[in-house]
């Protein structure tokens, strides 16, 4: 509904018909994809009545790790991608263990993981961006070829009409949807988020469920990090700061409750597109950044109020 409204507004303020061009929509989709991938994982965690603030740092860590493995180390993409995803999964699982086993509040755990992850990214990168200028044994920088995978992720298919990152985003939405709506794990996540004690007494493996939710979020953050590195053509330890807030906003605008136990990834998709269109329309109409920020804030509140009104 908010999305429909946004499209209508887009048609009204079409910036001389620019809104009707597919390339505009394509670019919007490309721009929100990284956020959208984070939001998928965030949806899972929020439904489990948690929150994951660490996704932005895990994204940076993944971007740096990926760039480091593929460029200075010269790994092939086929080897690097699984390793980076595994890093995301492991760090996500650590958050999950701390939440589930140690019973520390998710906010605290993932806040700590956010700081830790950012630090780890800086350790791996030595505090600098990792680019295709690779220092050799003598400390002289040499230019190596940008690995093919970077180009592939940043390219478009279908006659240049669809970005690869958007397809990756769509795949993440699909995977999340299958997990949440069609799998046993999904049922467990909703139950744990809705009433943890009731879930436990029903024989739901509560700890495993929570760990899985955070691990999934970590994996999605790693996927987003790989995409980010490919788009920036380097691994930047400072990348993605405050992305977790955008991801949370997208989930909330969709109508998933922070109280847990309720929501869906389809709602999150709507939230992602709503914010995407808002940004696009404002930039088409050359609105200054200040206006964009203020409007984004306002729309978060409106969307939440609107959702409540419908219940």
């Amino acid at each position, binding site marked *: 509904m908010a999305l429909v409204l946004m499209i209508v507004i887009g048609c009204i303020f079409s910036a001389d018909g620019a809104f009707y061009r597919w390339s505009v929509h394509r670019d919007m989709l490309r721009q929100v994809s990284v956020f959208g991938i984070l939001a998928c994982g965030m949806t899972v965690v929020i439904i489990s009545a948690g929150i994951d603030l660490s996704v932005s740092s895990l994204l940076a860590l993944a971007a740096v790790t990926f760039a480091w493995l593929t460029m200075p180390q010269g790994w092939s993409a086929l080897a690097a991608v699984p390793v980076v995803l595994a890093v995301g999964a492991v760090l996500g699982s650590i958050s999950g263990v701390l939440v589930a086993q140690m019973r520390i509040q998710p906010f605290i755990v993932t806040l700590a993981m956010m700081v830790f992850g950012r630090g780890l990214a800086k350790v791996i990168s030595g505090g600098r961006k990792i680019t295709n200028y690779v220092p050799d044994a003598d400390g002289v920088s040499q230019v190596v070829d940008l690995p093919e995978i970077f180009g592939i992720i940043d390219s478009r298919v279908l006659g240049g009409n669809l970005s690869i990152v958007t397809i990756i985003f769509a795949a993440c939405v699909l995977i999340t949807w299958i997990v949440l709506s069609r799998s046993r794990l999904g049922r467990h996540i909703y139950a744990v988020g*809705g009433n943890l004690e009731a879930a436990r007494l029903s024989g739901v493996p509560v700890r495993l469920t929570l760990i899985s939710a955070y691990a999934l979020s970590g994996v999605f953050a790693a996927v987003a990090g790989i995409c980010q590195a490919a788009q920036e053509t380097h691994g930047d330890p400072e990348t993605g700061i405050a992305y977790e807030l955008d991801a949370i906003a997208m989930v909330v605008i969709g109508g998933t409750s922070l109280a847990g136990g309720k929501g869906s990834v389809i709602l999150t998709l709507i939230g992602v597109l709503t914010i995407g269109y808002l940004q696009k329309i404002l930039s088409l109409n050359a609105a200054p950044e200040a206006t964009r920020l203020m409007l984004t804030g306002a729309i978060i509140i409106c969307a939440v109020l609107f959702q409540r009104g419908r219940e």
Partner: protein
Amino acid sequence: MTAPIACTMTYQARTQEERMTTTGRDLTSMGPGSVAGSMSHTDPAVVMRGIRKAFGPVEVLHGIDFEVLPGEIHVLAGENGAGKSTLIKILSGAYSDFTGELQVGGRTLRFARPSEAVRAGIATIHQELSLVPSMTVADNLFLGWEVAGRFGGVDFALQRAEAARILEEMELDCSPRQLISELPISCQQSLEIARALTRDASILILDEPTSALNEREVDSLFVRLRELRSRNRSIVYITHRMEEIYQLADRITVLRDGALVGTAPVADLPPANLVRWMVGRDLPKLKSDATQVVRTAAQPARDEPALAGARGAALEVENLRVAHAAAKGHFVVGGVSFTLNRGEVLGLAGLEGSGKSEVLHALFGALGRRADGQLRLFGEPFSMKGPRESVERGVVLLTNDRKSLGLAPELSVTHSVSLASLRRFSGRCGWMRRREESKAVRDLTREFRLRAPSDEAPVRSLSGGNQQKVYLARCLLPQPRVLLLDEPTRGIDVGAKADIYDLMRTWVAQGIAILLVTSEMDELLALSDRIIVMHSGRISTEVMRDTASKDAVLAAAMGSQRRQSNGR
């Protein structure tokens, strides 16, 4: 669950006069709809006329007339979903969008919010408690109308002193400085009542106030209510317990499916008629009182008591101990041994804090390392590892706290019912077989006569009784062999209770063993094949059904009978 420390209770058997009395008169001729004539010459405290209320397109109240006189206890009766709660919510200001007229003290009013109703002298005590767990007893009693102190602050000392006085008057054994979260649920409920009484309300609405109280507390509540009646207060009382109706009520108003069936003085409406008014049909084999309803439902199991033993043991419990949650070295259950047979209902009686609920939780594995003892499940060792293992081995627990331990409010009916049986409906990689799942759930909920808008509706949209049925259905779907039931009929109406008794009978006939905890003595006596009575964490006696009496069970629960050495 922690044992209550603060509120230690003693039982008092009710006097004979106070027991449920039934007028022998046959008033079947008095059909639904007949309203008793002028009761009194005094002006009513509350008049509701032609009240209609709709949620969206669905009208749930179809023109209700309801009045309450000063100095009367007026029972509002009806099955779950009959519209009692909605009517009460209109009266207490929770809903303002209704049609019809509401007069309080002769003035026509329409409350925009509950606080306006409170100011008009209407105090409501809801079934679900509304105390703040992290605040003290005194703070809660004065929440919302704190006593002003100097410099615009709160006079805490005065509040505490006042609270202490109220607690003493209510005979509540807790301190004003104690946190609500430290108190057992029965004590919290008494406090809720105390809070309403301190506000000097002229109209008091109680929605099933006794569901968490023991008999002594119930008695003291009733004394208080009668006292309030004599001081010309009006009391609207909602309950599903027959005996309470006939102990307390001056008049009864019955609702059914959102419509008024009638209002009658209690003497003109014997139980049989009341049930007929409420249900709109004769319950099968219904006799003249609630006990009879229960007895009838449990009859077949009773015919073959010997058979139960012949079927063999389902669960053998030896020296079960449960450590106190906080106090080291103390045990809330201190060495309990018994055998639960196949196809038998074993009643577990005891007061609040006797450890009966803890026994159930421990057997289910919900207490983890706090519990130890030797268990054999159908002859094989059983280690109380945890809920998951228990469910897998066919042991299922229904807790007495549906809201916080039972249901997740946002889950759909289907997902709630299947929650404990997901493995049955999913493959090895976790893919749900949804069609199979929803069919199994639908079959079961039909058996339970569940009334829900749809299978996809969130459980929070169901009435309390139907939520309880959802919860029970969840416990039954995994096809358990041992059922641990803690207050299975709490807060549900006569019709639903009869349904559940009926179901329990079929489960027992299938060979399921049931360990039953219930605070309703009639239910306990009627359903159980044997009863073991607990006192202070130990078994004080065991009685067979035929020799069991209310008095004997009560006496054993109080610990006055010869008992095994009590090493506390």
